[in-house]
């Protein structure tokens, strides 16, 4: 592991950025499922 990888600030930044990206993709997937439910159920 490099210094940069183990730095808590860098880890925190990476975590936030990854969390944001994953949440955006999941939100899009869930929105599509929600839309199906709203339109057809």
């Amino acid at each position, binding site marked *: *592991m490099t210094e940069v*990888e183990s730095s808590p600030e860098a*880890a925190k930044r*990476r*975590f936030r950025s*990854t*969390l944001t990206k*994953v*949440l955006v*993709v*999941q939100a899009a*997937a*869930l929105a599509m*499922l*929600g839309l*199906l*439910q709203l*339109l*057809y*159920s």
Partner: protein
Amino acid sequence: MHWFNWLVVIVYLAWVVVDGIRKSKGTDTIAGYFAANKSLSWWVVGLSVMATQLSAVTMIGTTGQGATDGLRFVQLYFGLPLAMVILGVTLVPLLHGSGVYTAYEYLERRFDAKTRSLTAFLFLLSRGMSCGTIIAAPGVVFSAIFGIPLAWSVALIGIPTIIYTMIGGVQAVAWADVKQMVLIVVALLAIVVVLMFQMPVNPHDALQIAGSTGRLKTFDFSFTVNETYTFWSGVIGGTFLMLSYFGTDQSQVQRYLTARSVDEARSSLLMSAYWKIPLQALVLLVGVGVFVYYQFVQPPLLFNPAHEEAVLAEQAPTYAALQTRYGEAFTLRESAALTVAAADGDTQAAMDEFLAREADIQAIRGEALALAEDVTGETSRDVNYIIPRFVLSELPLGLAGLFIAGVIAAAMSSIAAELNSLATTSVIDFYRRWVEPEATDAHYLTVSRGATILWGTFACIVATYAATLGSLIEVVNRFGSFFYGSILGVFLLAMIPRARGTGAFVGLIAGMATVAAVTFGAPSVSFLWHNVIGAVVVLFVGLSIGRLGSTTADA
């Protein structure tokens, strides 16, 4: 099945075994055999992680569940993306960076030998038995569909898997997983394409019909611990379940220990975080599509051909009467479905009529299932036969073989990971730790290959006697659910500096005891919440007695 479909299956099986053996290069040391010399790219590990989790039950049972119950099952996975991100910044760097071969090995470094041995033993106990059920599930279905003895279908799935896992170790397993994951997705997409071309109504009308029966209802926001498939159970309970599975279960941990670096290990888990929910939605949508298709093409009254045969042999007149009623009810429902599809604007009356006819069909099917259960003395799992029957009767030549190969691939990828992790844990956490600590790599490799064969043979025997061992397997699986969350609790404790070995060990036992008490005392509480309860109790008890015992902490 047509010989050409069998040819597709056999070519696929031969390819996986031959390529698995080819991929055994560099696995003549334990670092190579158990961790692929930490040489695999993130995408290989990521596909391996996904293939391991996606079992044959997903291909046949979950698609069938989509046909009977719709999309709501997908809520189980709502916690997965968050769990993957949390693991990426907590356990993954801890385990990957510490140079261990098993997750439990880390627990001795952090706590003590007894905590390591107990968690490793619990893993062997639960996974050893579940490996048999992973083979048994598709084995039983193939046996009924193709009319072959269960032992043959178990051998068809089990033997090639044992061969490439035994020879090539984790590297062969990971590369086989890549092929298997691609095949699984291709097989699912093939069904989607066939459904789109063969569906007698357009996609909007198909969705209208599916929606009117509630099969497009994904979200249930009610908060009740007794229901598994709700938004909150999925987000909270599901997060804990996925943290336990991907963070502490050796069959998954071993996948990302093979990655080149911590960042590649993280990326491999994020592949699941991004794709698991869409993939699971696709699996369920395939089932929903088959449900709509069967509104216009009459399906068999009983999907399990073995049950159908047994009923015809013993209760032919009763079954014939049911089939006559079923045929009439089907015609009425088909006409109602066409009315729903043709209705424009206000479709409520057409939908009410359709739902009434659908209820008639379900009532007749319920009678047939009860009859089958009476005749065979077996619990009917007809839902597992919906998709295989559809595939064999409706898919074009070659594609049916591709799907069957996909189901076998899904089973093999899960079993290979189980066998590989069972052998690794047996050798690293018990044989090398307690029996022969100073042997050569060649010696450990021989023992590991022997362990793979032993676990594989044990799994095949359990699978072959799945029907007679049914209640025993259920007990073991139930026991397994007692400690999943509790083991997660131990790993969470490992990340807290003031936690100590005795606290972790006592906490683990307290966590399991609490979950056992909840299981028997409040059986209506969904299993998803057991993981939350187990982890929280271990943390609480472990920290409360944290000052007791000794630590060999290196964290």
